[in-house]
């Protein structure tokens, strides 16, 4: 996978070519290498420090962290953020921001619950398909609305999506009459399908997260539309002069953000078995944090779908760490907040350092 924003100087490249095999060069230059390294280091540290317990069902001694249930649960917890983070990253790369993804999630879920209550109360495969269609349709519609308002009203996307964040959640609140709506069992069976792994192991959200992240990466890096998104975020004026239809691209990225929020709602709501207007409240900040920790630049032009997923996994992993290590969880917000700020500051410092080296002629 190629980097989108390589700051390697010719001298660096030459130096590497002389010392490393092409595979190693590609591996080391990949954006994912560092995040994966940190995640693996955390996994190892947690496995060593977590202690163990005797499983109530099997009577066997089990590591408190390094067991299939905890690992899949951690990935599942990350998956709903991560799926939304893929869409949010695409928006951020384009130079925009979407604060409404949590509300889109809630509205898609509530719409699904209300429609299923009327159209498919008995559940079955039809209910799963209908739920999927409703969530995707609501997500796309909400995204298209955001995009159209950003383009049509020429108001900063922060303001537009701040407004739609409240509007969409308000619609969900009014429509649901503040009730928590139970979903048909078939939806939960789908989202919690063990896929042969055994009881109480639910890999579907994790697999969906991987698939959607890969699709996002392919879209961004292997398609013309994806390159247009980078071009728009990197330099909107240059993109305009080169003939790109910026309005269409902008609407497109918000549609994708809405789509991923709808997909996350479908999976998340099915997994937990109910929907309410309060769902995913505040999740937009975790989603944006995931994108930023994954290296997305808020001014646009840089970011990666895979890294956004890894960013989500890293944030959830650190939250999990606090509990696995039995640290006082009241410190969770402080720790995650500090880590995000420090990560971005270091990333920017690194970028400035690289730019200075480039200006000085490399080396």
């Amino acid at each position: 996978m190629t980097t989108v924003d390589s700051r390697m100087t010719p001298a660096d490249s030459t130096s590497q070519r002389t010392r490393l095999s092409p595979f190693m060069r590609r591996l080391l230059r990949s954006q994912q290498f560092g995040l994966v390294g940190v995640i693996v280091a955390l996994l190892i540290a947690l496995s060593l420090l977590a202690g163990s317990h005797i499983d109530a069902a099997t009577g066997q001694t089990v590591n408190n962290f390094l067991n299939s249930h905890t690992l899949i649960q951690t990935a599942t917890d990350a998956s709903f953020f991560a799926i939304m983070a893929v869409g949010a990253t695409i928006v951020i790369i384009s130079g925009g921001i979407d604060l409404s993804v949590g509300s889109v999630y809630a509205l898609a879920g509530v719409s699904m619950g209300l429609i299923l209550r009327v159209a498919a109360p008995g559940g079955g495969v039809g209910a799963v398909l209908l739920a999927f269609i409703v969530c995707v349709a609501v997500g796309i519609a909400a995204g298209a609305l955001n995009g159209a308002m950003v383009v049509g009203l020429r108001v900063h996307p922060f303001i537009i999506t701040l407004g739609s964040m409240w509007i969409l959640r308000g619609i969900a609140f009014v429509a649901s009459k503040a009730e928590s709506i139970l979903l048909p069992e078939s939806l939960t069976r789908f989202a919690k399908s063990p896929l042969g792994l055994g009881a109480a192991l639910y890999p579907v959200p994790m697999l969906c997260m991987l698939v959607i992240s890969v699709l996002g990466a392919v879209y961004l890096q292997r398609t013309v539309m994806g390159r247009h998104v980078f071009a728009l975020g990197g330099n909107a004026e240059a993109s305009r002069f080169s003939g790109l239809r910026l309005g269409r691209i902008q609407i497109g990225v918000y549609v994708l953000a809405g789509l991923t929020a709808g997909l996350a709602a479908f999976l998340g709501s099915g997994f937990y078995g109910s929907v309410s207007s309060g769902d995913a409240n505040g999740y937009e900040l975790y989603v944006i944090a995931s994108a930023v920790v994954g290296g997305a630049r808020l001014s646009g032009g840089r970011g990666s779908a895979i890294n956004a997923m890894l960013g989500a996994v890293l944030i959830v992993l650190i939250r999990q760490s606090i509990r696995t290590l039995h640290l006082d969880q009241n410190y969770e917000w402080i720790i995650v907040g500090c880590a995000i700020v420090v990560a971005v500051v270091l990333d920017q410092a690194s970028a400035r350092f690289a730019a200075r080296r480039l200006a000085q002629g490399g080396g």
Partner: protein
Amino acid sequence: MILRPILRPILRGAPFAVLLAAMVASGCPKKTGPTATGEGSGGAVTASGAKPIRIAMIAKSSTNPVFLSARRGAETAAKDLSGRTGVPIEVIWLTPPQEDGQIQAQRIAQAVNEGANAILISCSDAGKVTGAINDAVARGVPVMTFDSDAAQSKRFSYYGVDDKQLGEDVMGELVKLLGGKGRVAILAGNQNAPNLRRRVEGAKAEAAKHHGIQIIGTFYHAETPQDAAAEVIRVDNAYPDIKGWAMVGGWALFTKTLLTDLDPKKVKLVAVDALPTELPYVEKGLAPVLLAQSSYLWGNVGVTKIIDKIFYKKDVPEVVSMDPVRVTSETLGSWARQLRQWGFPDVPEEYLKLK
């Protein structure tokens, strides 16, 4: 130079590892309840030979004082029962900072994965946690609910008030204070919490029995004291003829602002809960009646019932009913002393001296 492509992305993720390492190294406070028995030991056998019992406690929100009181009750019960049973009992506090049923479901799974022997939970959203409770039970971990139930789940018992009845009682007390007539409002907290919704239903049902009582509205808000008090003031300004508030939770009275912003001669409040910060409202006559849930007992009785179930193998009723305590100016002293006995440090001294 060869290190640059390696270091840049690592730097991006490094703060997490550094912070975590720093937390561990610098002794970031651990959850050391009075009965903690070696963090991370899980179900391992202790030096005394007894296998510790770990109870995960998941309340709705760690910023709500009633749940902090419940935690204190749980930890005290764990300490007492550890002495009585000879088995170390540990309460693991897994309450999210804000109400979120989805996070609660995740924490149920986490508790099971890390070897908890039982779970005690107050459900923010029964629908969201029912699946996780059933999974926990299927994996051999019994679950008990308190305060807010998940009645459709496989939990073995629920401890708390009858919420609909409590709502009726709140409105009934208010109707008595107002002499059966006047415009009133209901302060309702989180609109998604099933127990609060039932209290609101009860309050409305009771009001419907009295022709002189008119409900101007049911007002929801984020369950923080400031949000609740601000909502009361907003509504009071918008409806100057409002005579009474039926508060199905005590949030607004956890601040002092209503003591000065509302006139006891014009408006009366009846609220659920009677924590130390609410007692001046009784003394000043603004809230002549508070219906206290013994939130300390949520944790205390919850842990006791869990130990009855998993240690003593006793039968525990499916519903263990809690009766609210009526706190008025006559009972203020005895209630204040009860709160102090339960470990509340901020009970005003003057109330402790009352009869």
